[in-house]
């Protein structure tokens, strides 16, 4: 019976301990697991001999803290070993060859990777064509009835305002309608689904680039597209739409000015009628005939007559201005926005610029390769030096 009880306790304890060995790293278990289990069996035997089941309990009381602390220690050591392996891997070149040679190998590797990536990307990027129309723009002249047309105040925001107007719905919507871009781009990019005008305008804005031509009143309207003809058509359509917008704006301004003048004329006519009536009354009051001479008593009549004559003269001037304005509206004149260069389809794609991209890729490759290879070679050299200097810990 005693032997059976011992065997049972032994088997149970050994089974538990062997499972607890899983707390150790696999490499440690592979190297020492069997020996540890053997040692535990020996200790179990001693413990049983010493105090039977109580001895086993006392053994477990010693073994469990030992197992807990040493398994943690071995786990940490395994982590450290892993770090060492990483360092070895990272410093693969440095441990086996000289740092200078390691640097050049890494440099060549990184440079080739970056350079080849830039070449591949350059050649797989979709080609994009650009077409540019140029338009001369002038600020609006003051409205009729205002300051002299010869005087145009300087507007520091004129160019920026013009850019914003060129990208406005009022200018771009006619472009979208004229070229049927909702349907064309819907078919091309959105599986035939007709786009909303607002969406098309957003896409158009992304393809539109506006820039002032230095020291001139010209603005360059550049449009990018994967279709060279489409790029030119859109650029010209934007220029024309802006020109039409400016002409319409000018006509609106002229009409508004004419209305102001007409209103002034109507007011003057009313004043003239009232003055004429008042003069007739004064004529009756002072019994003034055609041959009457001005006297002190009839002074109010003569003053009223003079005022009326001035008013009529002013009114005649105003009427002349209105006629001039009406005539001006119908006369041909230079536009405030004049298209100077129509866009033509580009001969070669502008994006990607293969030469520039490849040169940039080479420069980026040199920079990255120098940085990475330098840092890794230095790091590896430091690790190697430290490893050589360090004593093996016990």
């Amino acid at each position, binding site marked *: 019976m005693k032997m059976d009880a011992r065997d049972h306790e032994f088997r149970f304890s050994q089974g538990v301990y062997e499972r607890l060995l899983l707390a150790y790293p696999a490499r440690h278990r592979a*190297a020492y697991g*069997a*020996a*540890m289990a*053997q040692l*535990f069996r020996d200790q179990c035997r001693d413990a049983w001999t010493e105090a039977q089941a109580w001895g086993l309990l006392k053994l477990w009381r010693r073994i469990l803290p*030992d197992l807990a602390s*040493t398994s943690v220690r*071995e786990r940490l050591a395994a982590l450290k070993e892993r770090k060492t392996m990483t360092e070895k891997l990272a410093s693969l070149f440095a441990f086996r060859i000289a740092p200078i040679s390691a640097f050049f190998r890494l440099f060549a590797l990184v440079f080739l990777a970056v350079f080849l990536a830039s070449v591949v990307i350059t050649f797989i990027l979709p080609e994009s064509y650009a077409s540019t129309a140029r338009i001369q723009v002038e600020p609006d002249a003051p409205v009729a009835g205002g300051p002299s047309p010869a005087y145009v105040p300087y507007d520091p925001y004129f160019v920026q305002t013009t850019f914003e107007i060129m990208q406005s719905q009022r200018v771009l919507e006619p472009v979208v309608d004229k070229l049927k871009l909702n349907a064309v781009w819907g078919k091309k990019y959105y599986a035939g689904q007709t786009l909303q005008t607002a969406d098309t305008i957003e896409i158009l804005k992304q393809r539109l680039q506006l820039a002032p031509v230095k020291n001139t009143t010209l603005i360059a309207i550049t449009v990018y597209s994967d279709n060279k003809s489409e790029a030119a058509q859109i650029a010209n359509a934007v220029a024309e739409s802006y020109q039409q917008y400016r002409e319409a704006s000018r006509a609106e301004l002229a009409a508004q000015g004419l209305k102001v003048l007409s209103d002034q004329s109507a007011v003057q006519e009313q004043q003239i009628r009232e003055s004429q009536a008042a003069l007739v009354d004064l004529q009756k009051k002072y019994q003034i005939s055609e041959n009457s001479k001005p006297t002190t008593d009839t002074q109010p009549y003569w003053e009223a007559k003079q005022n009326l004559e001035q008013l009529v003269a002013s009114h005649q001037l105003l009427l002349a201005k209105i006629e001039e304005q009406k005539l001006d509206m119908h006369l041909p004149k230079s536009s405030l926005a004049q298209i100077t260069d129509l866009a033509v389809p580009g001969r070669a794609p502008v994006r990607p610029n293969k030469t520039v991209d490849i040169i940039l890729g080479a420069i980026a490759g040199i920079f990255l390769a120098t940085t990475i290879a330098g840092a890794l070679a230095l790091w590896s050299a430091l690790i190697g030096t430290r490893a050589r200097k360090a004593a093996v810990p*016990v």
Partner: protein
Amino acid sequence: MAKPDTDPARRLPLTPAVFHVLLALADGERHGYAIMQEVAASTEGRIKMGPGTLYGTIKRLLESELIEESEERPDPHLDDERRRYYRLSGVGEQVVRAEARRYADIVAVARGKKLIGKTALFSLPGGGL
């Protein structure tokens, strides 16, 4: 792996567990259980190494080449052939000697200061392995 330092003085001081294991192997090669018994006997049962401590120490001693695993068995008929035997390496012997001398010097100093008597037993620190 970098080659361990062969200068014994640079390995000192040793941890108590390492010193006890090296002392246990000073008489000759032993397997794990025998090392544990020797340590327990030399410390009058105050130190009983668990399997984790013992084999963790053995692992580190092997890595630092202070001990080596023996291929030979003292008597295969008398022992389990699966047991692994360990013995001091040349460097290990130098190191354990140097550590023993270091302790002896410390004991001499302690005696000079009359902290311990001439018959005081040499007791290692770190009894709770």
